[in-house]
């Protein structure tokens, strides 16, 4: 504030303000009056008009009428409210009065009485935390606004995730706000009904049960110092009375059994990955860390002859996510994989002067007969080379060059295959390098095979009086098996879960648990990488952390271990739940140690010494919370040398083409815990591109042979179990292989309202887990005569000879990296006749000059694995609505970024493409921010315009919805709000047919109160306040996370300096686990994005055809495989054209 000089005030009259002209004229204008000259002029004019003298203006000389007329006229001429102004105000008042006729929201907004220190309203606050929603611990940063988490990002301080995040972890936000969680405190089951029970009563009841007999404790995987110590203390406190088992549906338990120790796969230390039926990317047993490292492994390094990237050789039956990115993919029936593996081992062993076990040699000789092994097993050759010899040769070559490889088969339980894989890794010297025992978390309690089922069986038999199940769902995971039935026989079953799951439905008591974003905890993702979990929001409902429940139970059972108890502190009456208005659980009031204190004590007691820092406790704790991750050195556990076990006799392979079933975990949902997550439901499968339903993948050969077409509903019978599933004809799938995915099929209301939308009659959310147990039997397929349209997000699967996703082969790329570009039509385009992009080929001349920032992006097709993390990141960042199955079927999905997946293959003699030996290319497509945008020219309302940083905006307010822009967009990245999508939680399908909704809309004047509404509390809390929620009838699309580039502009203005590269990035680029997407300022010569774009194999999609000048550059997919004769021969553009989608 600047202070005014006060000298002039002394000469002014006391009254210098007036309400209107009347008051002004009434109070005789003084000399200091700022309007005095104007008033004087007006008075003079009026006097002339009224024929009055100077003196007669005084009241004594005139009649009151004359004076009134004079005053009225004077008012007309003076500042203030005039007649016209009055009319304007009246009109405006009427408009505002009408505008105010909305129904007001009944809640009130209360501002901070005392604003928390360091909080700036409207500024996001980030908290580091750790989430396990993807099945593995992932260190994250939680972005919150006013105490509400609105986005989950990777923690850049984590050496594992490096700031990136996977799809499922990001979708955890929706799990937090899921209205289907238990909202009214602890529950007690009486028959079929659940009734709330006070926490104190629950603890008393459970304590009595615990004190009375043996206890079983079934948890998910345990890691992290505090979580581990809690289990240790419980076990030591209860002694032999407590038996603990871990149930981890995604655990690689076979490896544990084979090696005697859990292992971690270090793909970043490998130069070659040979996979035998394992899906390293989508198989569920690897996590974000492996995906991040896979990106490093796959990234093109060096130029010219030294250009190199990790090679992937895959032998598999179905087309897996790893198979989709493989350089060499060889189809093989799953039951012959073991023989292929031993075949490779045979060649490798021979070269290294070793011999194979007798059983393996016998089996190989029997399988081989007189033919080469690969022919006998029905494998294709690779450019005339035996694929088994090829794989073995590559493995040996990598070993010879002093590098490491990785042979991988996933968490398969095939003993023959597992032995061969372990042997190969041992022979090749991969043990301890890429098969790393030392990286296994020191605090981890791994799941041992069969332990969980054995514990449940003991509880059912009465050996254990009480079974406590913590945050796992055995009734679903063991569905259809005796174990699931045994749960019902447990004497006292206490389930700690966030909703009434299949297991909780059987429980006697349910203790609701908190979501990871509401509670404390810790994790150790890899040895020495410790991360803290801290809440980013107050608990939404009356629930408590599972660990706190365990502490409370132990205390109630009379276990008074010092770390478990805390002196009773009076309850803070202000601590009431937002929704239920009941007092929230407070550990202090019950005399139980709070889980937060417990974690803090363990970290200060055991982590701080390891961290080797000399600071006080408070500083350490705050620093650990701020960073989220503490890396300490721990004692490495060396992997014991591998000794091949006695192999049982090899089973005879089935006849060629015989049907066999493969049950894999869903590539989107994993084990199905979060089936109620609408974001994941609408995330398309990385390979099949299907959303919302489970499906049966059938080889094109089988589909033709058995007469199935896409979307036919087939009845699959195996081992006496029959399921009906819609058929998806999966290109690349080996004939005879049937693939289904587990993770779907939660029982009604057990996962929630969104998962219910797939139940029988409404969808095909079918649980196929019971089939896995009988998968070695012969399946039969029958027609049902029904069809079910799968909601597939991709319209057509092949490029049809168009120049869309370019590919090159490494050896050709080495000799001539720009060859592929020249083979296209754009050499002339690149150079141009005036030396500028596009040249004078266009009537528009050269492109616009961007003086400030010019945002751009590079997308590397080589490292993209199609994992969909970018799609979920974009959904969370930009408030992208979920539209539901019916709308996806119509092609109305709203994702601003999509990953196109094209199959390419050579044509057979008849010119038809080969549907079996296909290669796959993933291409993420977002708005290309065209320099000459086709959408902008045609919008009649100027609702889509360019800014001076090269970004194409959508002005939602201005859009009237002609959809001309979308028609004219060659990339079809624009999305239209056909309905008020933002209103629905799982799309309009959850709320009936259009007619039902119309009736409802009319009834409630536009505010429907459906179960499926997004406005259902607390779902509206997840919206990002930086981004407009779009209403119906407007177009929307990617804008390179405009809110982020805007924010940078403001900080630049404040600091006066240009933002450094990396200071701003889009949600997709930020999260991409393999860093396939790079975002940055094209005007910054040092920007990473410019280095990426400068590579010779970059090109702009459809630019040469349509002159759109996109800001996105794609880098061609480089395949690390031998070039075919055809590929070597192609020199001319015409020949490239004739080869269609193949380079």
């Amino acid at each position: 504030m600047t202070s005014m000089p006060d000298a002039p005030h002394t000469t002014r009259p006391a009254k210098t303000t007036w309400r209107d002209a009347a008051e002004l004229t009434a109070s005789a204008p003084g000399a200091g009056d700022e309007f005095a000259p104007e008033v004087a002029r007006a008075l003079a004019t009026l006097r002339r008009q009224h024929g009055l003298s100077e003196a007669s203006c005084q009241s004594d000389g005139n009649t009151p009428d004359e004076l009134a007329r004079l005053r009225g006229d004077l008012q007309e001429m003076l500042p203030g409210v005039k007649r016209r102004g009055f009319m304007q105000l009246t009109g405006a008042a009427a408009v505002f009065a009408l505008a105010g006729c909305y129904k007001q929201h009944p809640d009130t907004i209360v501002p901070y009485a005392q604003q928390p220190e360091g909080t700036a309203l409207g500024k996001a606050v980030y908290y580091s935390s750790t989430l396990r929603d993807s099945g593995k611990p992932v260190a994250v940063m939680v972005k919150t606004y006013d105490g509400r988490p609105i986005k989950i990002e990777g923690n850049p301080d984590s050496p594992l995730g490096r700031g990136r995040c996977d799809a499922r972890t990001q979708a955890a936000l929706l799990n937090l706000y899921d209205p289907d969680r238990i909202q009214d405190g602890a529950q007690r089951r009486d028959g079929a009904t659940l009734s709330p029970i006070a926490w104190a009563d629950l603890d008393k009841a459970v304590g009595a049960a615990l004190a009375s007999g043996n206890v079983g404790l079934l948890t998910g995987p345990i890691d992290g110092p505090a979580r581990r110590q809690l289990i240790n203390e419980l076990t030591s406190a209860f002694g032999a009375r407590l038996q603990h088992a871990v149930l981890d549906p995604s655990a690689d338990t076979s490896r544990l059994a084979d090696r005697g120790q859990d292992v971690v796969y270090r793909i970043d230390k490998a130069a070659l990955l040979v996979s035998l039926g394992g899906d390293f990317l989508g198989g569920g047993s690897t996590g974000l860390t492996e995906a991040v490292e896979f990106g490093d492994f796959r990234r093109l390094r060096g130029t010219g002859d030294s250009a190199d990237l990790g090679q992937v050789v895959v032998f598999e039956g179905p087309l897996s996510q790893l198979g989709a990115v493989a350089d060499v993919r060889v189809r093989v029936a799953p039951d012959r994989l073991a023989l292929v593996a031993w075949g490779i081992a045979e060649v490798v062993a021979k070269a290294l002067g070793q011999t194979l076990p007798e059983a393996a040699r016998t089996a190989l000789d029997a399988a081989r007969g007189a033919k080469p092994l690969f022919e006998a097993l029905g494998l294709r050759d690779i450019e005339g080379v035996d694929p088994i010899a090829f794989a073995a040769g590559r493995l040996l070559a990598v070993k010879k060059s002093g590098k490491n490889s990785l042979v991988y088969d996933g968490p398969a339980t095939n003993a023959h295959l597992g032995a061969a894989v372990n042997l190969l890794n041992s022979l090749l010297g991969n043990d301890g390098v890429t098969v790393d025992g030392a990286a296994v978390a020191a605090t981890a309690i791994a799941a041992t095979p069969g332990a969980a089922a054995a514990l449940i069986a003991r509880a059912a038999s009465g050996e254990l009086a009480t079974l406590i199940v913590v945050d796992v769902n055995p009734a679903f995971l063991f569905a259809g098996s005796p174990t699931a039935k045994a749960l019902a026989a447990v004497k006292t079953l206490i389930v700690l879960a966030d909703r009434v799951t299949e297991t909780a439905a059987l429980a006697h008591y349910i203790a609701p648990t908190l979501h990871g974003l509401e509670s404390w905890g810790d994790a150790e993702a890899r040895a020495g990488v410790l991360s803290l979990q801290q809440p980013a929001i107050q608990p939404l409902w009356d629930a408590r952390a599972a660990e706190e429940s365990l502490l409370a139970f132990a205390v109630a059972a009379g276990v008074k271990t010092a770390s478990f108890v805390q002196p009773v502190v009076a309850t803070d009456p202000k601590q009431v739940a937002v929704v239920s208005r009941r007092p929230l659980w407070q550990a202090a009031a019950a005399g139980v140690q709070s889980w937060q204190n417990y974690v803090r004590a363990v970290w200060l007691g055991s982590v701080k010494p390891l961290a080797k820092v000399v600071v006080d406790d408070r500083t350490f704790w705050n620093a650990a919370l701020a960073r989220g991750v503490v890396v300490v050195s721990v004692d490495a556990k060396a992997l014991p040398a591998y000794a091949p076990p006695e192999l049982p006799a090899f089973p005879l392979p089935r006849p060629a083409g015989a049907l066999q079933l493969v049950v894999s975990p869903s590539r989107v949902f994993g084990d199905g815990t979060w089936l109620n997550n609408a974001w994941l439901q609408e995330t398309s499968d990385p390979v099949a591109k299907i959303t919302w339903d489970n499906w049966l993948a059938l080889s094109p050969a089988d589909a033709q042979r058995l007469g199935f077409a896409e979307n036919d509903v087939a009845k699959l019978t195996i081992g006496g179990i029959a399921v009906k599933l819609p058929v998806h004809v999966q290109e690349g799938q080996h004939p005879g292989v049937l693939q289904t995915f587990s993770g779907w099929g939660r029982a009604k209301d057990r996962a929630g309202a969104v998962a219910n939308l797939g139940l029988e009659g409404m969808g095909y959310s079918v649980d196929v887990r019971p089939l896995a147990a009988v998968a070695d039997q012969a399946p039969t397929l029958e027609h049902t005569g029904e069809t079910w349209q799968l909601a597939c997000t991709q319209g057509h699967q092949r490029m049809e000879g168009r120049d869309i996703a370019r590919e090159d082969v490494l050896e050709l790329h080495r000799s001539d990296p720009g060859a592929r570009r020249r083979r296209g039509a754009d050499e002339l385009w690149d150079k141009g006749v005036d030396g500028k992009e596009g040249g004078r080929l266009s009537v528009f001349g050269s492109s616009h000059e961007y003086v400030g920032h010019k945002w751009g992006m590079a997308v590397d097709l080589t490292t993209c694995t199609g994992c969909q993390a970018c799609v979920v990141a974009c959904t969370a960042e930009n408030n992208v609505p979920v539209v539901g199955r019916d709308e996806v079927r119509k092609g109305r999905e709203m994702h601003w970024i999509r990953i196109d997946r094209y199959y390419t293959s050579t044509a057979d003699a008849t010119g038809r493409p080969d549907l079996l030996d296909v290669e796959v290319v993933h291409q993420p497509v977002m708005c290309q921010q065209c320099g000459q945008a086709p959408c902008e020219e045609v919008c009649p309302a100027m609702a889509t315009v360019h800014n001076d940083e090269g970004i194409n905006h959508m002005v939602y307010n201005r859009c009237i919805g002609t959809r001309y822009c979308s028609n004219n967009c060659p990339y079809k990245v624009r999305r239209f709000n056909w309905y008020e999508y933002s209103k629905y939680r799982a799309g309009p399908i959850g709320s009936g047919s259009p007619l039902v909704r119309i009736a409802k809309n009319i009834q409630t004047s536009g505010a429907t109160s459906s179960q499926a509404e997004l406005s259902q509390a607390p779902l509206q809390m997840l919206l990002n306040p930086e981004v407009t929620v779009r209403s119906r009838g407007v177009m929307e699309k990617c804008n390179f996370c405009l809110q982020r580039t805007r924010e940078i502009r403001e900080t630049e203005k404040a600091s006066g300096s240009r933002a450094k590269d990396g200071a701003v990035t889009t949600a997709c680029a930020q999260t991409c686990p393999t860093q396939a997407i790079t975002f940055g300022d094209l005007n910054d010569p040092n920007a990473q994005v410019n280095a990426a774009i400068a590579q010779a194999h970059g090109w702009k999609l459809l630019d040469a055809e349509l002159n759109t000048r996109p800001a996105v550059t794609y880098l061609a997919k480089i395949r690390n495989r031998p070039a075919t004769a055809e590929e070597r021969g192609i020199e001319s553009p015409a020949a490239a054209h004739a080869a269609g989608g193949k380079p």
Partner: protein
Amino acid sequence: MSAPHDLPPLTAKQLTDDVTAPLFKLPNLIWFHGFGLAQMLAVLLFVAIGCYCVEGYGIFGTNQPVNWGNDITTYIFWIGIAVAGTLVSAILFLFRQKWRTAINRSTEGMTVMAIQIAGLFPLIHTGRPWVDFWLMPYPNDRYLWPNFKSPIVWDVFALTAYALCSIIFWYLGLVPDFATVRDRATRPWQRRIYSVLAMGWRGRAEDWNHFERAYAQFAWISTPLVLGMHSTIAILAAVGKVSGWHTTIFAPYFVSGAIFGGLAMAIVLLVPMRSMLKLERYITVDHLERLAKVMLATGLLVAYVYVMEFFAAWYTESPYEKHQFLVFRPTGEWAWGFWTMMTCNVAIPQLLWIKAVRRNLVALFLIAIAVNVGMWFERFVIIALSVMHDALPSTWGHYAFTGFDWMILAGSFGLFFTMILVFVRVAPVVSIAELKALLLRRSHRKEEADHG
């Protein structure tokens, strides 16, 4: 053979009696049935529009990538119908084609009704119909103007200008006839209404002088507008970067297609109308035959363009164009629509080479209906099929009608026929004044012959 403008031997009174008869008596049962049916269909249109306003554009079948389907197809269909009416009245007037006299009033009426229905469709195809007025450049405090680069804005201007001009042109021609009706009306309320409509017409030489000049001027104004109107529609597609839209041949192609389809609609209207209103003496088979000939000629133009599109796609070697024209349209999921178009627009009209077919009203009527069906599909093939298979195969989509699409399509016909059926009851469907002029000229000729 007599020329079509040759009138039967009758007096001016007989002519006036015949033409104004429907205005002074109760309609027959056929009219009532037709009117009831048309009204029922029209109600569907308004129900669908109501549902769309309440719930959103999603109730229709459009999607990504087929952002325009039934809505714009039907819009262009009705625009095409409208264009033909002005062609008959204005262009044939300027070329002094006297045979137009018998049919120009009814085709103009068709234009006026069709343009209103056409105008409805752009308004109800937007996502937020309540802000459709943003398409107009109106003064506002934020200085926001429409984007003059956008063909939609040109389309708004073209449509508005064309609609206004054709309504004025139509009304102008009606003024002397309204005066005739006024003079003959016996019921006071009818007299009152028609005297307002006749705008004080007295039949003075001055009146006629002004009238003829104004009429000719409007004919001159309408002619470029009618060509411009449909060329603008063509540019709407041609400006697009979509294979199948991006074609320079579109403007003449669309205009000839519009005349082709519009004349077919005129035949569909005239054949039943002349018998219903007992105007066979005035609207003769000769007139209809002439329409059929023009229809055949424009149909051949359209067929030529179809062939040229295929040739251009093949000749350019562009995989995008080739797929659209040589693969998707003839063999894709909507091939039946494409072949319906080909059959109705190319094959069936060839029957019109046969004179007996041209003069057989039942055959002519059926051919005209086929052409109307074919022309709807032509617009559908261009608008929807092109975007259905656009540049990136991953985005290829499908399109299907919903119940609401059927409602607005059928409803638009219902509204059209409702308005036409009202029109034939309240206005003379044949231009009395112009016919009388012909009578006069004939009597002059006769007198000259008698005295000669």
